[in-house]
């Protein structure tokens, strides 16, 4: 009976100050660790996500552009030679090979000459919206990619190292993570033309 009362009294005393201090210290360290891990995890995930987006956008736009520029080539339409690079490589004017005489082929069956549609296309990136597109005059015809901050075209006219049938294209994509970190991806590729 005396032993039971002593246990009850000890229980009623609660925890000592030392116990509380130690417990609070352990809890604080653990909570700080959890918070640090959570913040770093969120940061890493955001950066990896943005990194993937810019890389994907750059590659996607290059792939789409390749599909289009494979159908272009050196041509003279209305007395103007195409393709033509403008604004230090920021814009590319080109025409597309197509079946103009309706014979079912994109070349003249008598002469074998390639046929070129009399439409002038312009590939350029919009610095405000970050959209890389192909325009006809002021009208956006095809969207090739977004988050594109810069594009650069190079042909044999600007650089002799570039092959005659080649267009060298550099695309740079940019994003900013929620933490304000810039994420950039730049890629250069060659695209061979029809002729």
């Amino acid at each position, binding site marked *: 009976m005396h032993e039971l009362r002593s246990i009850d009294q000890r229980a009623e005393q609660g925890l000592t100050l030392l116990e509380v201090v130690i*417990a609070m210290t352990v*809890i604080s360290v*653990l909570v700080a660790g959890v918070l640090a891990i959570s913040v770093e995890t969120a940061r890493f995930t955001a950066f990896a996500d943005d*990194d*993937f987006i810019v890389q994907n956008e750059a590659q996607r736009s290059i792939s789409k552009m390749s599909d289009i520029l494979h159908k272009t080539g050196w041509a003279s339409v209305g007395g103007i030679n195409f393709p033509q690079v403008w604004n230090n490589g920021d814009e590319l004017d080109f025409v597309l090979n197509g079946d103009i005489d309706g014979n079912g082929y994109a070349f003249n069956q008598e002469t074998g000459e390639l046929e070129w549609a009399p439409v002038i296309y312009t590939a350029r990136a919009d610095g405000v919206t970050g959209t890389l597109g192909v325009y006809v005059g002021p009208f956006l015809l095809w969207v090739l990619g977004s988050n594109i901050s810069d594009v650069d075209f190079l042909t044999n006219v600007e650089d002799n190292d570039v092959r005659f049938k080649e267009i060298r294209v550099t695309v740079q994509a940019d994003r900013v993570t929620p933490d304000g970190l810039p994420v950039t991806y730049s890629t250069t590729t060659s695209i061979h*033309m029809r002729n």
Partner: protein
Amino acid sequence: MDCQSEHPLGGDLLPHSGRSRVQSGFSLLEVTIAIVILTVLSFTTALVLIPVSREHRSARETDVANASVRTILEEVHATPFNEILTRYPDGDQIAIVGLTNGLIAVSYENAAADPLVMRLDLSWDSPEQGPMQRSFFTVRTE
């Protein structure tokens, strides 16, 4: 013995207080255990991100490698047929910028043939997955 004293965690702390368990709230031990569990879960979540990060890095390496080969293939198709063997001789090795020991090895089934079958063997050392290798073929004709 009442129902409070039977509780394994907090019941015996207030055996004669007359307050219910609901009024007594969580004990320090309960809170500590909960935080330990949360900590373990957080560490586990963080550990899951490691393989995700590795996979992301590998995917990026593969993209860089594929883009390099695609550029070479486009250049080959832009090169006059009679200059291909000069620009890309049999056994030539082209370095890939951005990949550890990244190389593209050029070879031909028959260098004198037309159509010319060109083979590009791409290899690099991935820090995560070890040696990587892929092969690409293209055909050119005069």
